[in-house]
């Protein structure tokens, strides 16, 4: 059995609390309904959807099929372009690299555009512990930071809050917020004024990366608010963070991704800003940072890559559409997962990164309805991977971190018994006859039955099984 040093995250308790919050449930239901509708409009033409999706999936598959070579090529070309490359095996290494860059730049303030990798790293907390202020500049991230919480969605970090709640938060946390009321435009304007000043003063700007092009050494970053471009151009130093799977082979591989990503995520055909970053400020240029650094993070990704079936996890382009369409996510919201990546992609990615001892329950928080698989723009077999991780959770000795963490002798015995009953016609007949005869006498207070009967009546065994009825009716057996 695996070492149980890692404490299991209690998803059940957090989701129960979330389910009792009717305002939260309303916020998610409204927002996700809207997002699903907007996405559907973008893909009204089924043939076009299949074509775009096949193309994007092939781009990601091709990149993954030559990942090691492409990463080397990317490093060579980024370096040639004057962009400094840093490799980090762990989040601790990535944090240390970041701190080092900030210290060299004498920077005490960083402004940050959206980056999920920095959420994996818990970078803000780390830098704050070292006396460095980090300000989130994406409006949603800014709100979440003000609130002292974490993003509840990878694309729309503050989607769990409604305007009223945001207005209340601003009033509590920002001096000048008294006059804004609950007007979304006024609230946004206030945030913009505060952020503008910070952009001017920050020594470092930080961002994520949507795609890194190996053949040209270009970092592609898409966003809607212009804050990404501010972060990557105004401060003298720019640090971009990417997971090592974000590389693509060619420049022409970018359009399929950046046209599918916003369509899938928010139902936009394209984002307001598409940034292609290919070098720091050159001699004679009037803007741009004087230094650009890229931190390329592994954090368990190479182990994911090593398994041909699990590798598909790394196709993800982080559009978040799987969350929008997940019936579990839309009920419990993002915070219940207590993870940087919630929802379906989180349920397969986070357990592989953080291990099954801590995250073994995540792959089970799924009805396997396949709604995510149906809309994933790069065709990740999310539910297949979920099933595979359920196997790993009860089977020690495989490559997945903390495999076997949920192994239970009792559960294994129950399934053995179930298999024995269902693989012998005689045993099956005896067992089903017994259930039909006395099964209904089982008290509703039995452990698993109790969970069922909390909101449902007890399932009733029929007096005669289908086997009995078919026999009686003379339906032939062969």
């Amino acid at each position, binding site marked *: 059995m695996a070492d149980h040093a890692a404490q299991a995250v209690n998803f059940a308790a957090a989701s129960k609390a979330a389910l009792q919050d009717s305002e939260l449930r309303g916020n998610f239901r409204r927002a996700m309904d809207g997002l699903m509708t907007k996405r559907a409009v973008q893909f009204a033409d089924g043939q076009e959807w299949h074509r775009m999706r096949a193309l994007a999936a092939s781009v990601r598959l091709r990149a993954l099929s030559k990942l090691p070579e492409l990463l080397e090529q990317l490093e060579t070309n980024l370096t040639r372009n004057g962009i400094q490359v840093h490799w980090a095996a762990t989040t601790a290494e990535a944090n240390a690299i970041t701190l080092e860059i900030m210290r060299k730049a004498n920077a005490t303030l960083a402004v940050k555009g959206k980056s999920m990798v920095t959420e994996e790293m818990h970078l803000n907390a780390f830098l704050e512990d070292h006396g460095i202020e980090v300000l989130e500049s994406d409006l949603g991230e800014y709100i979440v930071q003000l609130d002292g919480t974490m993003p509840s969605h990878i694309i729309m970090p503050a989607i769990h809050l409604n305007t009223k709640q945001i207005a209340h938060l601003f009033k509590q946390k920002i001096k000048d917020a008294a006059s804004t009321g609950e007007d979304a435009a006024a609230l946004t304007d206030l945030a913009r004024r505060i952020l503008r000043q910070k952009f001017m003063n920050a020594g470092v700007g930080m961002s994520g990366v949507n795609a890194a092009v190996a053949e040209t050494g270009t970092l592609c970053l898409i966003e809607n608010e212009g804050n990404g471009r501010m972060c990557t151009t105004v401060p003298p130093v720019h640090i971009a963070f990417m997971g090592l799977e974000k590389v693509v082979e060619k420049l022409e591989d970018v359009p399929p991704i950046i046209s599918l990503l916003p369509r899938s995520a928010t139902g936009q055909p394209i984002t307001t800003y598409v940034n292609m970053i290919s070098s720091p400020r050159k001699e004679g240029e009037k803007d741009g940072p004087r230094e650009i650094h890229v931190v390329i993070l592994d954090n368990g990704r190479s182990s994911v890559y090593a398994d041909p079936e699990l590798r598909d996890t790394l196709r993800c382009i982080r559009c978040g559409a799987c969350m929008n369409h997940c019936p579990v996510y839309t009920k419990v919201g993002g915070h219940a997962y207590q993870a940087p990546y919630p929802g379906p992609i989180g349920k397969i990615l986070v357990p592989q990164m953080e291990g099954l001892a801590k995250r073994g329950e995540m792959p089970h928080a799924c009805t*396997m309805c396949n709604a995510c698989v149906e809309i994933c723009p790069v065709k990740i077999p999310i539910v297949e991977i979920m099933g595979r991780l359920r196997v790993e959770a009860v089977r020690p000795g495989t490559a997945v971190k903390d495999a076997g963490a949920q192994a239970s002798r009792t559960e294994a015995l129950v*399934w053995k018994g179930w298999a024995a009953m269902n693989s012998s*016609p005689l045993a099956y007949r005896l067992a089903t006859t017994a259930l039909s005869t006395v099964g209904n006498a089982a008290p509703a207070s039995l452990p698993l039955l109790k*969970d*069922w009967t909390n909101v449902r009546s007890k399932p009733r065994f*029929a007096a005669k099984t289908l086997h009995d009825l078919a026999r009686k009716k003379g339906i032939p057996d062969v």
Partner: protein
Amino acid sequence: MDRPTPPPSTLATKPTKVYFFGTCLVDLFFPDAGMAGMELLQAQGLEVVFPQGQSCCGQPAYNSGYRDDALTVARAQLDLFPGDLPIVVPSGSCAGMMKKHWPHLFHGEPDEAKAVQVSSRVWELTQFLVQVLNVQLTDKGEPVRITWHASCHAQREMGVVEEPKALLRQLANVELVELKREKECCGFGGTFAVRHPDISAAMVGDKLADIEQTGAKRVVSGDCGCLMNINGALEAGRKPVQGQHIAQFLKERIHG
């Protein structure tokens, strides 16, 4: 690796004989739905064979991480369906397990070829009634308003979306009012319902609200897992709506 649903089974000629795989849930909880399914097929002039040795497709263990046990159970079904007759299943979920997941489950096993051959002959009941038999139904029942609950696996593993609704629309006195969120899961999910009971309860709660807003008297579905969940919740909430398997509903309508 992509594991797409294999293309629908195809048949060169209309068969005269079929196998029926009843599924364990139907066997124990909804045997009348199973009988109705067989009677619908017989009404089309088909001979129906119900191998008495059958039990379960193996899905419960497969989805719980116990693939060896799933394999043991799935394997016990293989020899019961010799030849090349179609195998009709009154459940999108069990049909999906047999059609989509068996080839993967048996991959590398000595009986892989046999499993793939059996798997390739699997049809979901309404899919078979519409695509192969092209059944035409005459409604003899009283006017009624119903709604349709689509099972996730019928839709997304078997690709069965329109077939059951097409059958229901053939019934002159049946008004079919579709759910607002027809594609949304009811929260059953096999062991999910008891492993995450609170989330499952919230999901079935939303489904009930959707069903109620249609004003339907009945909610018809093609999967008994969903029906156990939805009916259990309808009953516990004392709602005036009842869930019924589509086979049973169709049989009642054509008999009046």
